[in-house]
């Protein structure tokens, strides 16, 4: 294993912990995006660029968008 792979693995481990440890859903969405970024780096250094691209677009485009709109909707409802 090259050092870069070890760094990526550690980053993903820490990122996953950070996602679980974040309590506020809004912040959690952002932390999740960063975690996805770390995961994409991991896939690149393990020579799986196709998977890295898929992970990147899902975790930084599709998923946050849907989570954020759902959060906004719920916040609006809570206020009523």
């Amino acid at each position, binding site marked *: *294993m090259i050092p870069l792979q070890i760094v990526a693995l550690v980053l993903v481990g820490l990122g996953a912990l950070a996602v679980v440890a974040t309590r506020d859903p809004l912040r959690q969405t952002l932390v999740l995006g960063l975690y996805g970024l770390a995961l994409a780096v991991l896939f690149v250094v393990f020579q799986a*660029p*196709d998977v*890295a*691209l*898929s992970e*990147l*677009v*899902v975790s*930084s*485009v*599709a998923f946050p*968008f*849907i989570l954020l*709109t*759902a959060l*906004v*909707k719920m916040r*609006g409802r809570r206020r009523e």
Partner: protein
Amino acid sequence: MSRRTRLGLFVVCGSVLFALFVWGLAGLPAFGTFNGEYGQILNSVAGTERHVTNVVSSIVFDYRGFDTLGEEFILFAAVIGVALLLREARDDRERPRDEVRSDAVRAVGLMLVGPTILLGLSIVAHGYLTPGGGFQGGVVLAGGLALLYAAGHYRAYRAASPQGMVDFAEGVGAGGYVTVGIAALVSGAAYLENFLDLGTKGTLASGGTIVVVNAASGLAVAAALVLLFHEFLEEVMYPE
């Protein structure tokens, strides 16, 4: 459940899980070795058999094209489900005039719309040459459009993605994939078997039906995500 019981339950379950994990880890092949026979065969034959430089795409859109058809329709069904649940029959409501107040967000965000869409098109177009393909590029395309809303305003986003056009694109993308398979049947080959000229390896004109199927899935994925964004944004924009 009291804190004590929960902690006890965690210790028991956690240690069992940990033991199973270590056991599984010990049984793994050595780091860097790969025993997948199928993968090794494809890695050596895909280049000459399909004239593509990205073996992953040849698997996704050719050797295992039928699996991808199923995946395509999972996304299709999910989006239809969301539209069925959330879409309003009438679309004559006045669109809200929201705008982004921060000049910096607006300037940087809107500047990125063009490059993002171009990047998406490039990832789709080069799917069988370099990493990427219909799915990844399609999501980037949808993301470029969503930037219009995130950094500009809702009206601009909706004007750039008229409902009728997106519905049509979704149908053409998903239907196009199926049609390539049927065309293969008509030509006398098996369903989704490559029947077009394979072209020159390393150029955009290579891969035969992979080109068509890749483009169809790019269109379907981009449209599916834009439709999804439409429905979710409508929920936010018209709080009733």
